[in-house]
C-alpha cells in the first residue's frame, strides 16, 4: 500500500457522499451546538447569578438567571438525545448509501477485476474501508461544524461586551482547534506511520509463528523467533515512548491553552471593568463562557486523526471503483441464438494478462466443440487451462483471435445474455451465507419446490438435504452449516442443473476432493453434461475415455490433441501425466 498524501479531490468526493443528507446534518449540528451552548449558559449564568446575589437583596431580581440555570439541564439533555438519535440515523443511512454506491460501481468490474482482488484479502479490505467511512460524518464533519458554530457564538456573545475580548477568544479557540491538531499531526505523522509499519511486522511475525509453529519447532527456531519479537517490541517501545510524549504534550497544551484563554479574558476584562466599560458583575460570566466553549474544541484533535483514516480509506476505495471494466456490452447486442444446440469455437486465440511483464498466457489456441460434444482440457498446473475457460465466459477479451458461439463472436452479445447461456461449475464454488434454498434459487428465482428437489436428486444431494432438520431452509456458510467439499460441489451442480443452460463450462470441479468423493461426484457431473455442449478443464485424468476430444495444454499452447486411447498410444505428455497419477496410492 502506498502512503502518498491523499488529494483534496478525494476529500471532496468523500464529502459528496454526505450531500443527500444536508438537511439532517444541519439539524444535528444545530442540536450539537445547543448542547454546548446550554452548558456555557448554565455555567456563565450561574456565575452571574452568584455575582448578582452578592449585591442584590431580593431574590425576585434574579428570577431570569435562576430560570435559565434551571432550564439548561433540560435543554442540554433534550438536545443531546435528539442529536444522538439523528446523527446515528444519518450515519446508518450514510453507510447504506455508501454500500449501494460502491456495489453499483463494483458490479460492472466483476469478474475480471474482482478476480485480481480476491487474492490477498483485498476485498475484505474494501469492506472495512467502507465501514471506516461511516465515521466520516460522526467523527469528522459534525465535530468540525459544531466547533465552528460555537466559535462564532462565543465571539458574538463576547463582542456584545467588547471586541477585544471577542478577538482574544477567537485567537485561543483557533489555536486550540486548528493549530494544536496540526502540530500534533506534524509531531506524530512520521512516528504514526512507523508505528503502523512496525505493528504490522509484529502482527505478521505472530501470525507466521503460530501458523508455522510445527516447522519452527521442528527446526529449533523458537528461541530465535522469541528474540526477534523482543527486538521488534523494543523498537516499538522506543517509538511508543515518543508517541506518548507527543500525545501527552497535546493534552497538556490543550489544558494550557484553555487556561490561558480564561486568564487572558480576565486580564483584558479587569481594566475594562475598572474603567466601567463593562460591568464587573459579568467577570465570572465571561470567564465561564470561554471556559465552557472549549468543550466544542476538544474533539477536534480526534477529528483530524480520523480525517486521515477516512481519506486513506477513500483513496483506496476510489482507486478500486474507478477502474474501467475489462469488458463491456456492445452498443447493439445481437440477439441470443434461439437453438439449444450451441457449438463453441476458439479461433487462433492469444491472450496475456494486462499486468506488465507478464508473458503470453495462451498462444494461438484453436479448437472446436461441436454442439452437444464434450471436450476436455488437461495439462500441468499453470498451463493456462482455467484462463481458457474464463475467456469463454468473457471475463477478459483475447488480444488476438476470436471466440465464436453458434458461429457468432461472443463480443457481439450482451454480457448478461452471453452468461445466461452458460452453466458454470468451478473448483472454488462460491456459496452465499444463505439457506440452501436461497443458494439454489440464485440459478432460477422462480423454481418450484419440485424443481429444486429434482435438481438435488440429480446432483445426488437430496438424501443429505432431507436428513437436515431444517431441510432446504438450512443456513449454510460461515454462520451456518459447514458443507464438505463434495457437498458444496453437488450443490453447485444442482445449481447448474436448475439454470439449465445449453453450454457447460467445468473448471477443476473435483480438485481438492478425496478420491471416493471424486468418483461419486463424476456420476452427477455426467448427468449434468448430457445433452449439453461441454468444455471441461481438469488436471485429474478421470473418465477421459468419455470425452470426444482431449486437448493437452502446456505453457499456453495445445501440445497434443485427440481421444484418450490415441493420446496414451502417443506416449507424450498425456501419457506421462497418466502414469504419474496412477502411481498415487488411494487415500480415503
Amino acid at each position: 500500500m502506498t502512503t502518498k498524501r491523499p488529494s483534496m479531490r478525494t476529500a471532496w468526493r468523500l464529502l459528496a457522499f454526505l450531500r443527500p443528507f444536508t438537511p439532517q446534518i444541519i439539524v444535528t449540528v444545530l442540536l450539537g451546538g445547543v448542547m454546548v451552548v446550554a452548558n456555557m449558559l448554565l455555567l456563565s449564568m450561574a456565575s452571574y447569578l452568584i455575582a448578582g446575589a452578592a449585591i442584590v437583596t431580593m431574590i425576585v431580581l434574579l428570577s431570569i438567571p435562576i430560570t435559565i440555570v434551571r432550564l439548561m439541564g433540560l435543554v442540554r439533555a433534550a438536545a443531546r438525545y435528539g442529536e444522538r438519535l439523528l446523527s446515528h440515523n444519518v450515519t446508518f443511512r450514510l453507510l447504506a448509501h455508501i454500500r449501494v454506491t460502491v456495489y453499483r460501481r463494483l458490479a460492472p468490474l466483476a469478474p475480471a477485476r474482482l478476480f485480481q482482488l480476491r487474492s490477498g484479502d483485498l476485498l475484505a479490505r474494501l469492506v472495512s474501508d467502507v465501514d471506516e467511512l461511516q465515521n466520516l460524518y460522526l467523527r469528522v464533519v459534525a465535530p468540525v461544524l459544531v466547533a465552528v458554530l460555537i466559535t462564532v457564538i462565543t465571539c458574538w456573545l463576547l463582542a456584545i461586551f467588547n471586541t477585544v475580548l471577542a478577538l482574544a477568544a477567537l485567537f485561543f479557540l483557533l489555536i486550540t482547534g486548528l493549530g494544536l491538531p496540526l502540530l500534533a499531526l506534524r509531531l506524530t505523522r512520521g512516528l504514526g506511520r512507523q508505528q503502523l509499519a512496525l505493528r504490522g511486522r509484529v502482527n505478521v511475525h505472530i501470525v507466521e509463528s503460530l501458523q508455522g509453529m510445527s516447522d519452527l519447532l521442528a527446526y529449533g527456531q523458537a528461541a530465535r523467533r522469541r528474540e526477534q519479537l523482543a527486538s521488534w517490541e523494543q523498537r516499538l517501545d522506543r517509538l511508543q515512548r515518543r508517541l506518548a510524549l507527543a500525545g501527552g504534550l497535546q493534552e497538556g497544551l490543550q489544558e494550557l491553552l484553555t487556561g490561558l484563554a480564561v486568564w487572558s479574558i480576565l486580564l483584558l476584562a479587569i481594566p475594562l471593568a475598572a474603567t466601567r466599560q463593562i460591568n464587573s458583575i459579568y467577570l465570572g460570566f465571561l470567564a465561564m463562557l470561554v471556559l465552557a466553549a472549549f468543550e466544542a474544541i476538544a474533539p477536534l484533535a480526534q477529528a483530524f486523526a480520523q480525517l486521515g483514516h477516512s481519506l486513506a480509506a477513500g483513496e483506496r476505495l476510489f482507486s478500486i471503483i474507478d477502474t474501467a471494466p475489462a469488458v463491456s456490452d456492445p452498443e447493439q447486442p445481437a440477439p441470443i441464438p434461439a437453438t439449444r444446440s450451441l457449438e463453441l469455437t476458439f479461433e487462433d486465440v492469444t491472450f496475456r494478462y494486462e499486468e506488465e511483464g507478464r508473458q503470453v498466457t495462451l498462444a494461438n489456441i484453436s479448437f472446436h466443440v461441436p454442439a452437444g460434444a464434450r471436450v476436455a482440457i488437461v495439462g500441468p498446473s499453470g498451463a493456462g487451462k482455467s484462463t481458457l475457460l474464463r475467456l469463454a465466459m468473457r471475463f477478459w477479451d483475447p488480444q488476438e483471435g476470436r471466440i465464436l458461439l453458434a458461429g457468432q463472436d461472443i463480443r457481439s452479445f450482451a454480457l448478461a445474455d452471453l452468461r445466461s447461456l452458460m452453466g458454470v461449475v468451478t473448483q472454488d464454488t462460491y456459496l452465499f451465507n444463505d439457506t440452501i434454498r436461497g443458494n439454489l434459487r440464485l440459478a432460477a428465482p422462480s423454481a418450484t419446490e419440485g424443481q429444486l428437489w429434482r435438481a438435488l436428486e440429480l446432483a445426488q444431494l437430496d438424501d443429505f438435504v432431507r436428513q437436515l432438520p431444517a431441510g432446504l431452509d438450512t443456513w449454510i456458510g460461515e454462520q451456518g452449516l459447514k458443507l464438505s467439499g463434495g457437498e458444496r460441489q453437488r450443490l453447485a451442480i444442482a445449481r447448474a442443473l436448475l439454470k439449465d443452460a445449453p453450454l457447460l463450462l467445468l473448471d477443476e470441479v473435483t480438485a481438492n476432493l478425496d478420491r471416493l468423493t471424486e468418483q461419486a461426484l463424476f456420476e452427477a457431473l455426467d448427468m449434468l453434461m448430457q445433452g449439453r455442449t461441454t468444455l471441461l478443464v481438469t488436471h485429474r485424468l478421470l473418465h477421459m475415455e468419455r470425452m470426444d476430444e482431449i486437448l493437452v495444454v502446456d505453457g499456453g499452447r495445445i501440445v497434443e490433441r485427440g481421444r484418450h486411447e490415441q493420446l496414451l498410444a502417443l506416449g507424450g505428455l498425456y501419457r506421462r501425466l497418466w502414469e504419474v497419477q496412477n502411481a498415487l496410492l488411494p487415500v480415503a
Partner: protein
Amino acid sequence: MEKQILHYCTAARWPLALSVLAGLLALLATVGQMALLSWVIARVFLGHADLQQVGLALAVLLVIIGLRAGLVWLREFSARRAGNRVKSELRRRLFEHLLLLGPLFVRGERSGELIATLNEGCERLETYVARYLPQAVWSLVIPLLLLVIIWPLDHLSAILLLITGPVIPVLMIAVGSYSQKHIQRQWATLARLSAHFLDTIQGLVTLHLFGRSGAQEAHVARLSDEYRRRTLRVLRYAFLSGAVLEFMTMLAIGLIAVFLGVRLINRELPFEQAFLVLLLIPEFYRPLRELGTQYHAGMEGRVAAQRMLEILASLPPVREPREASRSLPAAPLTLTCEQVTCRYPDSERPALHNVSFTLSAGSCTALVGRSGAGKSTLVNLLLRFMEVESGAILVNGLPLDRLPADLWREYVALVPQRPYLFSGSVRDNIRLARPGASDEEVERAAELAGAADFIRELPAGYDTEVGEQGLRLSAGQLQRLALARAFLKQAPLLILDEPSSSLDPESEALLSAALARLRRQCTVLVIAHRLNTVAAADQVLVLDGGRLIESGPPAALLQQPTSAYAQLMTARLQEAGAVPGKEAEAL
C-alpha cells in the same frame, strides 16, 4: 484480576502510579487555579481593585496554569507508557507460552482466535490499562477529595454533592449495563452486516454468472435500512440513559447554584467562597462521567485479560525431563516404539493404540493408511508435540522423554506436505534449517533437493520474497523447498509427508530423486502416497484406526493374499495397467 495482570507486568506499576499521582496533583492545581480565579474576580467585582492590585495573583495564576498543564502532560504520558508496557510484556509472555504449548494447541480454527488475542486483545488491554484503570481510581478519589475541600467552604453544597454524587455511578451501572449489552449486540449485528456485504461482493462473479447482480443491489440497500431501523430502536434507550445522566448533573449544578444564590442574598456566605464552590462542582462530576465513557474499554479489556490469563494458565503438553540427558548415544539413529498409546485431550478414543515398530538405522520406512488412521499423530509424537499416554519411544536405547524436546528436535528434519513459508526470501526460508549456513551451502541444499532450477527462474532468484505477501508456489515446489531445508539440516532422522495430490511429471521425478539421495544419509520415515515410494521402502507400516495392522518389507507383504496392503497394491496396479476405454476404476 487487575492484580494478576499487573503481577505479570511489574514494569507498568510505576508509570501507572505516577499517572494516578499526577492526575491527583493536577486536580489540586485546578483547585488552586479556581481559588485564585475566584479571589481575583471577587477583588475586582466587590473590592473594585484594578489590574495592579491583582497583578501578583494573576501572575501566580499563570504559573499554576503552566504547572497544571505540565502535570496533565505527565499524567497522560505515564498512563500511555503503562499501557505500552503491559501490552508488550503480556504479548511477549503469551508468545513464549504458546511456543511451549506447541502446534497442537494453536492448530486449526483456534489459531485465528489466538492471533486476535495477541494482536487486538493486547491493544485492548493497553487501552484498559492506560485509560480505564487510572480513571477508575480518580473517579473514586477525586470526588472525595473535592468533598473534603468544599466542606469547609460550604456545608450545604458538600451535603448536596454527597447525596447526588453516588446517584451517577448507580444510574450508570444500572442503565449502562443494560444498554451496553444492547449496544454490543448491535455492533455484533453491524459486523454481521458488513460480513454480508463482503459475502455479496465476494460472490459477485457467481451473481454475474446467474444474472443476479442487479437484484442484489436492492438487497444491499434493504438490508442496511432494516438494520438502521432495528438499531435505532435499541439505541433510543441507550441515548435516553445518557440524556438522563446529563440532566441529573446539570440539574445538580443548577440547584447548587440557586441554593448558593439564595444564601448569598441572605448574606450567609461570602461571594468568593460561593463562587469557588460553583467553579469546583463540575470538577466533582467530571471523573464520574469520564469513567462512563471508558466503561466500554473497561469491559473489553477485562474480557481480553481473562482470555490471556487462561492461556497463560494452560499446561504444556510435554513434560520436560527432570534429569535430562544432554545428548544421544552416538550412533546412526535407531528409533523404537514400544506399545505406544496416546490420545488427544479432547477425545475419548485413543489416536494410537498399542503401536510398536522399529526404524532401524539407515532404513527407509513407508507409513500408509487412510486419513484419520493416526499417521499425523505418530509424527506429532515423534516431534514431541504431544506425549505418549502409555508405552515408550526409545532412541538408540534412550527413552525419548529423557531428552529435552529442543535438543531432540535437533536430530530430526521435518518435510511436511505443505511446509510453511515465512515472509522473507527463498534463501531465508531454506536457511531456517540452519541459520548459520553460508549462501553456498543453501544453494547446494537446493541443488540436492531438485529445487535449484525453479528457484533460479524466480523473478529475483534466491532473493525472491515468499510467504503470506509474497510469491505463491505450487505444491511440488513447496515440497522441494522443504527438502532443501532437510538437506541443509543433515539430521539423522528424516520425517517426510509426501504430497497426496498428483504433481507435474517433472516435480514427481525431481522429488523421488531427492528422496533417494536423502535415504543414503539418514533414517527415514515417510508418510507415503506413491506406489514407487512404498515399493522402494525397506519396511511398510500400515495404520488403520490408530492400530498398526501390518508391517514388514513390501515384497513380503505382497506375498500374503490376506494383506490389506497387498490388496491395495494389486488394485492400484490393475488400474494403472487398465485397458484404455474400459471402465475399470476400481477405487
